[in-house]
Structure formats: structure tokens, C-alpha cells
């Protein structure tokens, strides 16, 4: 009896939390209370360990479904009110956009927002993760109307923009264009993929060549074959352009805030 009691008192420290199965239960009441204390201690220790593990490490953030809360930023209703579903005339349709088109109403294509929303959430999530890990972002657009918006947004969030005419070889022949070896961005965001009405933005092919992932808003007349993360949507209406620019602004700021919180800066 005395020996077993001593054993119990010894096993009261945290380092001896593993219960001894060979220990004979000499006093049942004592045994139960002992089990309780052990269990409480064990579970407490276990919880502490779990909490330690739950501290967000950079790798574990990728397992989180929506680490930055980008899904709360935009809903289907927002997309509809911003006229994101309106596409081009059916005659201007690019074949690669066929899967994303809901239907043709009076010879105008309507984009399926039920495809757009998950693709947009996915693209924003990937974008936020790249920003979170300190990636360099380049915002591109060749639409004169939104040029000041994009440039101001990029300046506000502390990233880069290129909205002026694209010099051929800006990425692929940078040593000759700039005279030095450049640092390439880690992600390119295109608010328009057309350079002129007839030409695709040269930056898309060049970033594909140099292994830079691209996120692009693609209208029904755009080619998605070289875009890594296409988001089907209207890229011509000011309302939808504004929505997309605001979304990327908010996402960048969210990711940078998280980066500061988790002590990665």
C-alpha cells in the first residue's frame, strides 16, 4: 500500500504522465482519482502541444482552405451587379472561352458567373499566398480608361504596374532592353489580355516563356491558352474593372497584413 502510494505521488509530475499498466490497483478509489488527475494532466499537456503546432507555419497555411478570407470579399451578387457576366458579340468569341459561356442572348455572349466565382476565389487565394511569402507582383493592363486606377492601386499597395505599350522582349530580352539582368515578378496580374483589339498582350506569352504564373481577367474574345489562372469576366465595363481592381487591392493588403502578423517581414 505504502509503496503504491509513493509510486502515485512520484508519478504526479508532468514527466511521468504515462500511466503504469502493471501497477496493481490496491485501492480502487485512490486509483480512480489518480487516473483523473493523470488524464487531466495528460490532456492538458496534449492540448498545449496542439496549440504549439497550431501556430501558423508558412507551409501549413497552404492546407488552410481560405487563410486570408478572400472568399468573403466577393459574392455572386456583387459580380452580377458589376456587370461581370456581359461578354462580347457572339461573332467575336474565342474558341477557348466556350466552356465558360452560359449562353448567347440576342447575339451577345453571357458569361457563366457560377464558373467565374470559384475561379476568382481560387486565383485570389493563390495571389494572396504569393504575396504572403514576399513575392513581387506586377499589375498589367492596356486599357487607357483604367490606366490611372491600376497605377495608383499598385503604388498604394506597394507593388509594381506596367500599363504602357509593351516593348517586345521586356521579359525575354531584358538584358538588351534594360542593359542589366532584371528581377522577374513572381506573379503577373492582367486586367486586360488584349493589347489592341486584334493583338494579344505580348506580356502573357513572355511570362509563360519565363515561368512566371499569370492571373488574367479574360473576356469572351480572349485566348486563355497561355494564362495560368484565367478568370472569365467582363474586362470592358468600368463597373467590373473597378470591382476587379478593388479586389486585388484588398487581397494584397490582407496578405501583407497577415505577413506582418505572422512575423515574416
Amino acid at each position, binding site marked *: 500500500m505504502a509503496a503504491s502510494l509513493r509510486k502515485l505521488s512520484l508519478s504526479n509530475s508532468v514527466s511521468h504522465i504515462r500511466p503504469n499498466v502493471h501497477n496493481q490497483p490496491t485501492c480502487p478509489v485512490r486509483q480512480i482519482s489518480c487516473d483523473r488527475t493523470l488524464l487531466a494532466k495528460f490532456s492538458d499537456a496534449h492540448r498545449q502541444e496542439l496549440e504549439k503546432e497550431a501556430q501558423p507555419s508558412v*507551409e501549413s497555411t*497552404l*492546407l488552410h482552405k481560405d487563410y486570408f478570407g478572400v472568399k468573403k470579399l466577393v459574392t455572386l451578387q456583387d459580380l452580377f451587379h458589376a456587370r461581370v457576366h456581359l461578354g462580347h458579340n*457572339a461573332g467575336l*468569341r474565342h474558341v477557348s472561352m*466556350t*466552356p*465558360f*459561356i*452560359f*449562353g*448567347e*442572348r440576342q447575339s451577345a*455572349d*453571357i458569361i457563366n458567373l457560377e*464558373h467565374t466565382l*470559384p*475561379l476568382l476565389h*481560387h486565383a485570389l*487565394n*493563390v495571389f494572396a*499566398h*504569393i504575396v504572403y*511569402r*514576399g*513575392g513581387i507582383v506586377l499589375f498589367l493592363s492596356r486599357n487607357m480608361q483604367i490606366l490611372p486606377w491600376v497605377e495608383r492601386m499598385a503604388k498604394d499597395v506597394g507593388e509594381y504596374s506596367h500599363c504602357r505599350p509593351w516593348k517586345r522582349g521586356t521579359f*525575354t530580352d531584358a538584358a538588351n532592353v534594360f542593359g542589366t539582368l532584371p528581377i*522577374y515578378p*513572381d*506573379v503577373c496580374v492582367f486586367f486586360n489580355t488584349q493589347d489592341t483589339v486584334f493583338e494579344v498582350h505580348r506580356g502573357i*506569352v513572355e511570362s*509563360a*516563356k*519565363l*515561368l*512566371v*504564373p499569370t492571373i488574367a481577367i479574360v473576356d469572351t474574345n480572349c485566348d486563355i491558352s*497561355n494564362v*495560368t*489562372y484565367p478568370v472569365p469576366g467582363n474586362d470592358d465595363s468600368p463597373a467590373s474593372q473597378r470591382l476587379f481592381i478593388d479586389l486585388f487591392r484588398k487581397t494584397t493588403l490582407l496578405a501583407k497584413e497577415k505577413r506582418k502578423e505572422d512575423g515574416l517581414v
Partner: protein
Amino acid sequence: MAGSRREAVGSLLSRMIGLLKSGAVKQEDRPIWYDIVKALPPKPLPPQNEVPKIVYPEDFVRVHFHRTFVETSPVRLTDDKTKSVSQRFVDTYLDLLSKKVVPPAEIFDKTVELLKTEGIKLQTVQEKQERDLARRQSIATSPEKYTQPEDDFTSSVSRMEPPPERSSPPKFRTPHVKVDLDSLYSDDKK
């Protein structure tokens, strides 16, 4: 960056994986996006090869209406509360169709009757053409009846009073402090 520039062969991720496997890019030199794109790859395309046409049941009613009647009044697009004549027609038609009181062949005429009792003036295309023809003929026979009314702008301008003549010349503000302009341009400072 090391690697081939053949963007048409393989995806972004598959090409990067190839570079890492061959050792052209070391594991510790991999770009920031690599882990992210590997964990969250692009979604597959939805399976759809053809684009369907969007057609609503009321489209046929609306087409029938517009072929029979002319547009009577302009529609205010910003006004959500009042319905246009054609919208009211379609609503009444579909209402009658769902009630199944009137045989389907007579629903159109019945709807016209109902709208006329509500006080809506409907003008058929034929009536409009006849009216226009009669008007053109009367203009040709007696043009003095149809002189152009005076334009709103010209009448309002002619009705305006001439501006009053100024008795004194207009006053200009002069700066209180006189600036010595020469001292501004001279090099030596006093």
C-alpha cells in the same frame, strides 16, 4: 531563368518540375510560386463544347406584340417601378395563359381588350401606316396648314431682354503690396 522557353509544351508547373528533377534549378532556388501552384493547381476546364441560345417563353409573346403594335410611348430606363406597355402586355398574357380560362388561340385578342379597358392606347402597325399616308397627302394638297412651329430655342432667344449697358467701366483689383520686379531678377541680394 534557366529552362526552355517553349511555353506551348507542358504547363508552367510541369516545366518547373522537370527543371527541378534534372537539377537545372536547385531545390532551394525554386521560385516562390512553386509550392503554391503545386498545392493549388489551376482548375480543370468545365466540359462544354457548344454555347446554347438563351430563349425565354415570353419572347414569343413579345415578338408577336411588337410585330402587331407600334411603340407608343418612350420608356424611362432608370425607372424600375412603372412597367412598359409591352411588359404589361406580356404579364397579362402569361397570367391569362396560366389561368386557362380563355382558349390559347384567343389569348392575344383577350389581352388587347383587357389593356384597352385599363386605358392604354395601342396602335397597330397598319393604323400607323395609314395615318402617316393620310398626313403626307394632306401636306401635299394644303401645305399652309402644316407650317413648321417656331423652334423653342429661337423663340426663347428672341424673347430675352438685351443686357443693360454699363454706366461705369468695370473695376479691377490691384495688389496692395507693390513688388519690385527688378530686384527679383538681379543677382546681388541686398
